[in-house]
């Protein structure tokens, strides 16, 4: 499963890097990468500007898509495990919007204390804060009810939307454009700088998530039984929340809100490979990366000389999937339990 996803991801990444205004074949893409790594194998891009198009525009974009997708898929799987609820997802429960408010506040206020890291740090702060709010509001006896979780998400998204609106109102035209871009979600502004910031955050989050996987399995039994089995549930909860926020922030910081990836991907993986988090978490990361790279490829090539916002595309697919999941969960719980 994991191997299959990894291979699929490699193939799609090569394809994605090749498509665009200057077409480059997957073999040439692979050749170019290998040459840079010091291995003289395969053809170099034949087209004019091919090499530049690859290394200045396409690769940062594809790599950022990988990072964002992996972070979102993993954050979704981890969050669902900790909430004990298959509907928890950074976009649905409002953590993404919270992170976006943090990032937008940083953009608008023009604070640059930490250089390029400022936006990411602000997104992280917003993400942690929102996750804590959602967590505190929606849990009862170690479990979250579907209704409470979704309603909390509605409230958080509404509040975050209002704050974003307020920030837009207070800022100039550039700020408005920047914030509007956040809400739609797009990889168009990918640079190596963005990769350098989002990458380490995402890798840290993924590593922690994989380490937590076994203990998250036990949380499925409920909070007390997990503690009876030796899990320090208080600490696990805090570490998991911070990790989810870190992953969400690394995804949101440079691309805005790309929703539903964390909802749909873990669900599909669970249907194929079962709910065990030791497979679910890494597979969701790979699956998420695959979905975002593919989605971004479609978003920038579906219409000539125009680019669909990626967040809109994922929402078009993810929204109906969310409906379906809601109905299923409701049918199984025999009501809105």
């Amino acid at each position, binding site marked *: 499963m994991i191997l299959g996803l990894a291979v699929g991801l490699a193939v799609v990444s090569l394809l994605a890097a090749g498509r665009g205004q200057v077409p480059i074949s997957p073999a040439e893409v692979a050749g170019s990468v290998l040459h840079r790594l010091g291995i003289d194998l395969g053809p170099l891009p034949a087209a004019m500007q091919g090499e530049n198009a690859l290394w200045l525009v396409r690769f940062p974009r594809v790599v950022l898509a990988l990072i964002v997708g992996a972070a979102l898929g993993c954050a979704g799987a981890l969050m669902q495990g900790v909430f004990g609820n298959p509907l928890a997802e950074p976009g649905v429960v409002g953590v993404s919007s919270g992170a976006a408010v943090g990032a937008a506040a940083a953009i608008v206020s023009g604070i640059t204390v930490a250089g390029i890291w400022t936006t990411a740090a602000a997104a992280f702060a917003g993400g942690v804060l929102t996750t804590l709010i959602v967590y505190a509001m929606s849990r009862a006896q170690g479990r979250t009810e579907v209704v409470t979780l979704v309603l909390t998400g509605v409230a958080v998204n509404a509040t975050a939307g209002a704050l974003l609106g307020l920030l837009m109102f207070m800022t100039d035209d550039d700020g408005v454009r920047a914030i509007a871009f956040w809400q739609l979600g797009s990889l168009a502004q990918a640079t190596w700088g963005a990769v350098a910031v989002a990458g380490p955050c995402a890798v840290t989050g993924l590593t922690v998530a994989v380490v937590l996987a076994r203990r998250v399995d036990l949380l499925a*039994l409920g909070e007390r039984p997990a503690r*009876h089995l030796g899990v320090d549930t208080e600490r696990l909860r805090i570490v998991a929340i911070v990790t989810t926020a870190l992953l969400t922030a690394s995804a949101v910081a440079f691309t805005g809100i790309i929703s539903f990836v964390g909802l749909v991907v873990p669900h599909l993986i669970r249907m194929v490979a079962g709910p065990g988090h030791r497979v679910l978490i890494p597979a969701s990361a790979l699956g998420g990366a695959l979905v975002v790279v593919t989605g971004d490829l479609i978003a920038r090539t579906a219409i000539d000389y125009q680019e669909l916002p990626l967040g809109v595309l994922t929402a078009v697919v993810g929204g109906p999937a969310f409906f379906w999941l809601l109905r299923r969960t409701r049918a199984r719980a025999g009501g809105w339990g």
Partner: protein
Amino acid sequence: MRAVGTHVDLGGTTVVDGVDLHVDAGEVVALVGPNGAGKSTLLAALAGDVPAGGRIEIDGREVRAWKPVELARRRAVLPQRAMVSFPFTVGEVIAMGRAPWTGRPESAEDEDAVAEAMRLTETTGFAGRTFPALSGGEQARVALARVLAQRTPVLLLDEPTAALDLRHQELVLRAVRERAGNSTRVVVVLHDLGLAAAYADRTYLLAAGRVRAEGTPREVFTADLLSDVYQHEVEVFEHPRTGAPMVVPRR
């Protein structure tokens, strides 16, 4: 395992009030009493789930002073109702009972412990099915199997027979009895006084958070005492063959 002067307040009301309790190795101790007597809360206090006044010791140390994983190697707890959030298979759920032993020499027993727990609870047949798809009674047996697989010297069971039919009630308590034979200490909350009389070495009769009587079922289950505690006339007979006390409400 012993408790001295256990006192629990929940939401401003005293639920458990000055309970002294001890369990010896190889002993099955039943907590009985009417609804709201504080049986489950006392069990939760013994498990270290709720802060309690007085002193509760497990393996010679205050229960809430243990680290969670150290405590998990000493006592296993069966909750009143078992739930699993995701469609884990029965085999996976029971294997979760082995989690406290990960990375320890005892983890060599993992497979053996899971297989034995499945055999004792007769759950081997549905190891591959998912937990949420089982009936209530099957879920209850799987939950017990998970607890038995943990192989701890202390077992705390909250109504292990509530959802079970007659045959499986006997099966489950026989399994618990057998485990006590290997010097395990068992505290079990039971509603069925007949089962308590048949399987417990000693019982604590609780009412309004206090111990009303303590001793063997034969000593504790008297018509006067039970009628008073349950506020319903009951009659107690001796079983003609086994001599065990039988409790029948007067109708």
